[in-house]
């Protein structure tokens, strides 16, 4: 038996993604702070943003905003949870040394995959001769992948994190 997969018109997918991307960006720029999570779906076309709500010591009650998009999608669900932006960037080692994900052994990591980061936010440490050099995000984005394990040696400029940038104006 042969399965025939109808290829989608790449131009239309791009258009849809671009429209979704524009919506997400507009919502982000209007939002009061950075959301905890951004979910973009191109199949059923939806954009979901979640904010942590801090109320009487209780964190992370979610607010969801859904935005419909006019452009229809050809066929089949196309879930693209991470594609807020098509190009990804990298956060690189500021120095040769040992990479750490957390401020101290056993502590919660600075960031995990899927987290959103903002410019200047610490995401890790490189230790060189007892000198702790902070690694910081240089733009708004989502941590897509952590490329180096905790405690591994890294070279200068070695990619440590893959980040999907978010355009926040």
């Amino acid at each position, binding site marked *: 038996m042969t399965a025939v997969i109808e290829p989608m018109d790449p131009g239309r997918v791009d258009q849809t993604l671009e429209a979704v991307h524009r919506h997400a960006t507009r919502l982000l720029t209007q939002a009061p702070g950075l959301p905890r999570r951004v979910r973009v779906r191109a199949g059923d076309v939806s954009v979901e943003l979640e904010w942590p709500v801090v109320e009487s010591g209780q964190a992370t009650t979610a607010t969801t905003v859904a935005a419909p998009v006019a452009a229809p999608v050809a066929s089949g669900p196309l879930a693209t949870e991470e594609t807020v932006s098509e190009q990804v960037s990298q956060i690189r080692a500021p*120095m*040769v*040394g*040992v990479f750490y994900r957390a401020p101290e052994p056993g502590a919660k990591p600075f960031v995990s995959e899927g987290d959103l980061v903002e410019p200047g936010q610490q995401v890790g440490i490189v230790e*060189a*001769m007892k*000198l702790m050099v902070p690694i910081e995000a240089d733009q708004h984005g989502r941590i897509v992948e952590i490329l180096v394990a905790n405690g591994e*040696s890294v*070279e*200068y*400029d*070695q990619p440590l994190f893959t980040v999907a940038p978010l355009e926040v104006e």
Partner: protein
Amino acid sequence: MFRRVLIANRGEIALRVARACRELGVETVAVYSTEDADSAVVRYADQAVRIGPGPARRSYSNIPAIIEAARLSGADAIHPGYGFLSEDPDFAEVCEAEGFVFIGPPASVLARLGDKSDARAQMAAAGLPMLPGTPEPVESVEEAEAAAANIGFPLIIKAVAGGGGRGMRIVETPEDLADAFAQTRADALALFGDGRVYLERYLRSARHVEIQILADQYGNAVSLGARDCSVQRRRQKLVEETPPPGVPASVVEEMGKDAVRGALAVDYVGAGTFEFLVDDENRYYFMEINCRIQVEHPVTEMVTGVDLVAEQLRIAAGEPLSLRQEDIVPRGAAIECRVNAEDPARGFIPTPGRLERFHTPAGPFVRVDTHAEPGYRIPPTYDPLLAKVIVWGPDRDTAIRRMARALGEFQIEGPGVRNTVDFLSRVLRDERFRTGVHRTNLVDTLFAESEAD
């Protein structure tokens, strides 16, 4: 012997050290900045670690980065080459503290000899001849004037922490002393963070002659003859040769004995160079000690047959010197020309760029130490040394003819790239150089003459 050596340098010397390691069966680790990612030593070495961006203070002179690279690569010793961290006592100390052998003198020796005033005092105590000058740093204009009355004019004011021709001023007359003193102190403070200066008689017509020594950890030391480095431009050497023309062998022998005595007096370990000035009557005066392998070390290797870098490695690994003084019998003459990516027509400004053509000399008794090749991009970030051409001959005349032939074969081309080959050829043709009567002012004289044309 070591298992794995990290080479904390770049350019031709990094490759030179890596080759010595390979011949000794020692694994090599290159370190490099982002500017040098495509360099020859990165490909040649068994491992390579990227340690930082272009600026040396964040890469080749960055102590934590070098140490981390050594740890990461599993090196057991670090060769610092020349320049960068090669004579930094802090670096030597950190290496030892972190469990890596520093291939050079101990930190305490580097600290004492790096202070020129201290080094002079120790060498004077060891009986080496000194130029009239102030044994201690001079603190005030009044003190400087009193000292100058004894030293005489012209004199030179030198920064205690200075080197490489920086932080010094020649004073011709007593009237200029106060200003020059204040300016040199200010320069020294700005350049080296240490404003102390001392005064010394200035020899207008002198030769720069240096003695190569090797000393092991067990109180054995030998000298390996003398090099003349009088062809200089602003104290940057352009041509070096051995034996020094016009200096009698008996004088070279005396200088060698003095250098060995000086080295033993300060518990020196490793390869080192004692610099002297030699006046027209062949009287010599101690200047300073360079506690590293030097750019011009190949000329000594050519006439002695001793691989100085291999000896550095053996000494640092704790082996006793296998050479005795009577084993060292220099034979013939050797010359080195430094080919820089500089434009002599524009005051020797560096000319970085990409080499489209790079064809090195070859043939009998010619050695070329270089990291460059066709397609190599000369970065603007570092010193402009592109290649060292070294030749050997049974006598000085043959060596000069051979060098002229070799330089004539050198082809270096690239957009915007200039080089010093033609200028070096002009030095070789000069009658004063050919007859060996030139002094440290030859290059300035050549320029004055070409302007007069």
